[in-house]
């Protein structure tokens, strides 16, 4: 490759804000990575200059079950290979990275040095035992998060665990779990967070946010922040309830309900409201985007929504097969609101019954007791004006 060609490339890169020195270092490291000799550097340089630079991204797993990573592999528009090969440079993701150990962490570290990358966080932020409830590469998960969040252009918190701790933070929250946004607020890191709840995250949303939104420039312009609600959730995904968009809504209005699982009503696709469906108070567009490449979704397969996209979803949604959540009453334990109401109503009825017996016994049933003598106080006030 002729020397002039190099200059053209460097000019192009300079226009994109990449210095000659950085660029050569970068190409050299790629060559080393590939086990290629230094003589390949110019070729790599030409190739890189030819292609647009992909936005670097890092996917961190906090207190995760890996379900959100699994979920992102279940998308076809675009598919996961296109995302990680052609759209993003996902330089670190524990579940898919070819690299391992220190070399894998070094790949993430290289990204962290250049501000402007996208950080995707899966799983709860584990605070228990000073963060030692999650240990990665010799340090704790919270150290890793704080470090990674500093220079990120935006953080996408995928799944309910990353949003607010998810099921892990459910009462009594034994590992002191929380979400990315609340944690970063606590430690004073102001990187914007886009919250994508549900358990796991619906991959369509991740694609919509990362590919359609962040890569199309609304990250730089800041427009993404206008699309978020108070909890950091994109309004166009989490603005309506499942109930609003449910294909079984007609049956709900008609009063066609499934009374028991596995029945004829189930086969007819009747409404699951009576068996505890949390669709009316769950804000996601599951009925529209559906799951697993539109194969189905919870209600379509016959199960009531458990509200996994709600904040603190286990405490708020359980018992999942009842209409109401349980109330965690001190010393009684989890109790249904209806039981509490029944006890209070029963006590009231009993009280009134006993009182009626007293009224009967004291002979007040027929017109009440005789009036007391009017006190001076009453008399004085009434004379002054009215005895209302």
């Amino acid at each position: 490759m002729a020397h002039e060609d190099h200059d053209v490339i460097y000019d192009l890169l300079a226009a994109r804000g990449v210095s000659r020195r950085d660029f050569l270092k970068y190409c050299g490291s790629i060559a080393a990575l590939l086990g290629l000799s230094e003589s390949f550097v110019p070729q790599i340089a030409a190739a890189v200059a030819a292609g647009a630079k992909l936005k670097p991204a890092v996917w961190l797993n906090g207190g995760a079950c890996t379900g959100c990573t699994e979920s992102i592999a279940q998308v076809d528009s675009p598919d996961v290979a296109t995302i990680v090969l052609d759209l993003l440079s996902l330089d670190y993701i524990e579940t898919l990275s070819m690299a391992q150990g220190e070399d894998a962490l070094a790949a993430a570290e290289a990204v962290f040095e250049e501000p402007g990358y996208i950080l995707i966080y899966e799983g709860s932020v584990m605070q228990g035992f000073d963060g030692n409830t999650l240990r990665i590469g010799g340090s704790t998960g919270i150290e890793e998060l704080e470090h990674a969040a500093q220079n990120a252009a935006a953080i996408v918190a995928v799944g309910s665990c990353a949003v607010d701790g998810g099921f892990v933070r459910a009462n009594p929250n034994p590992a002191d779990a929380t979400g990315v946004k609340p944690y970063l607020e606590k430690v004073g890191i102001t990187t914007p967070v886009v919250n994508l709840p549900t358990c796991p995250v619906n991959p369509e949303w991740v694609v919509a946010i990362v590919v359609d939104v962040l890569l199309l420039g609304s990250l730089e312009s800041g427009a993404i922040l206008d699309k978020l609600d108070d909890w950091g959730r994109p309004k166009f995904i989490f603005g309506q309830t499942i109930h609003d968009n449910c294909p079984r809504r007609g049956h709900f209005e008609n009063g066609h309900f499934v009374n028991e699982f596995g029945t004829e009503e189930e086969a007819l696709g009747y409404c699951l409201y009576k068996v505890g469906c949390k669709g009316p108070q769950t804000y996601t567009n599951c009925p529209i985007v559906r799951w697993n490449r539109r194969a189905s979704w919870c209600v379509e397969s016959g199960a009531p929504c458990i509200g996994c996209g709600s904040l603190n979803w286990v405490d708020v949604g359980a018992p999942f097969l009842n209409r109401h959540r349980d109330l965690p009453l001190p010393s009684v334990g989890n109790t249904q609101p209806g039981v509490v109401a029944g006890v209070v109503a029963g006590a009231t009825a009993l009280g009134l019954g006993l009182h009626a017996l007293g009224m009967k016994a004291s002979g007040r049933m027929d017109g009440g007791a005789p009036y007391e003598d009017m006190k001076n106080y009453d008399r004085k006030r009434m004379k002054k004006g009215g005895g209302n």
Partner: protein
Amino acid sequence: MARSVVDPLTRIEGHLRVEVEVNDGVVTDAWVSGGLYRGMETILLDRRPSDAFFVAQRICGVCPISHGHASTMSTEDALGVTIPNNARLVRNLIEAAQYIHSHILWFYTLAALDYVDPVKALSADIADTYALAQAAGTGVSDFGAVAKRLQAFVDNGQLSIFTNGWFGHPAYAEDMPAELHLIAVAHYLEALEMQAVAAEIIAVMGGKFPHFMTSIPGGTAFVPTEQKLDDILFRFIKLRDWVTSTMIPDTLAIAPFYAGALEYGGGHGNFLAWGVFNDESFEMTSRYLPGGAVMASRGLTVADPDPGNITEYVERSWYDSTTGLNPSVGETNANFDEYSTDAQYSWVKAPRYDGQPMEAGPLSRMLVAYLRGVRPVQEIVDGALAALGAAGKPEVLVSLLGRIAARNLETKVVCDWSIDWFNELAGAIAGGDSKYFEPHDVDAGQGAGMWEAPRGALGHFIDIQGGKIARYQVVTPSTWDTSSRDDEGVRGPMEEALVGTPIIDAERPLEACRVARSFDP
């Protein structure tokens, strides 16, 4: 003496640290540390038994179906509920789809990069690749297009998920042709599609994957209609055909280049399976993949499994619960102390069976099934042994390569059964059987759900009092396999399997990663 540390071990479910001591190019000691504690067992207390199914499956995002089933079975066991036959078949089908999904994902997406070097694929000749695929009897893709895409990707220079991979590591089989590397890369991409097809089956029957909705205690909330049945069948057929024509031939084509892996990675030689895929009797020992325990001390013989024989030790992990308890009376009191391989070093407890560390997983299941004379398993294992030049020697399976082969062969067996179960279900529906759920109103009892995740033996233990969960304990396959040392200092199965592994480059212990990853932890 040198310590080699891989932390995090990538391409697994969860957070794992593998620390090995290497002497003269061989691993002489190993410590495996689980890095995450969430306290699921504590979270479930005082909740409804029917909630356990929904929450407990979230222990694992790769095998939630098995956790969900073990949980719901523990509740049914406690309440004395027997699910209807149709529900059994629906559950078998959902479970089968997860097995197929999980094994495809493991082999291609998680493990293949330990054996296949994408950079080597760049020098493949396209015509030769077609010829090789034909000769190996494996699936033909558009190899030219894959090679071009790979080339463009490498030229672009941003390696994304391949960043910092150990390209050109000397442990990659030197004599494996570039064309076979390219075939594997092409199938790596195809596998991404196939695992998603398997997950779609779960979505149709269970609402979504990961984390499904329908296998509630008492049966299933999924009532198959005609339009759903074909959605399920055509996907199972597609998967069976792909596993038969691509995954199995790929395994047999790559295996000979890593025949050395038959020599190490076996471990203690104790195997435990509770069994999976119920038949009409619901007995652990008569499941399609039956339960059983194989102890090294008794050679290749199988005994009936008994959950009563489990004890969990915690002296070397970060708990201060009573050590040596059976999970039906187990405790979970986390208490972190520093990481020290001489003292406590893991969040994983150390379960033992009859006092012995036990390997769990496809190798355990296939060995137990083989020894119990399950026909399809015997046939496929014997065929594979012959192909590997070890006809009539099932003991060679107790190795790194054997563990991988067992998993992939199991995929094929489960694919074939899935069609059988589907036909059985379709026949029952045609015959007018419309029962999917058994109502129940008992509110107390103790139960266990002994089952198998794709990665091994799994037990959920529940104690229900007054309609609420009074105790919940889980023993996961990863708890068996990545178990820390027990109170006697005996290594866990993965730790033991690592010992004896040859290491070419102690800085980059690829071979140790292969052994650890072969458990699909």
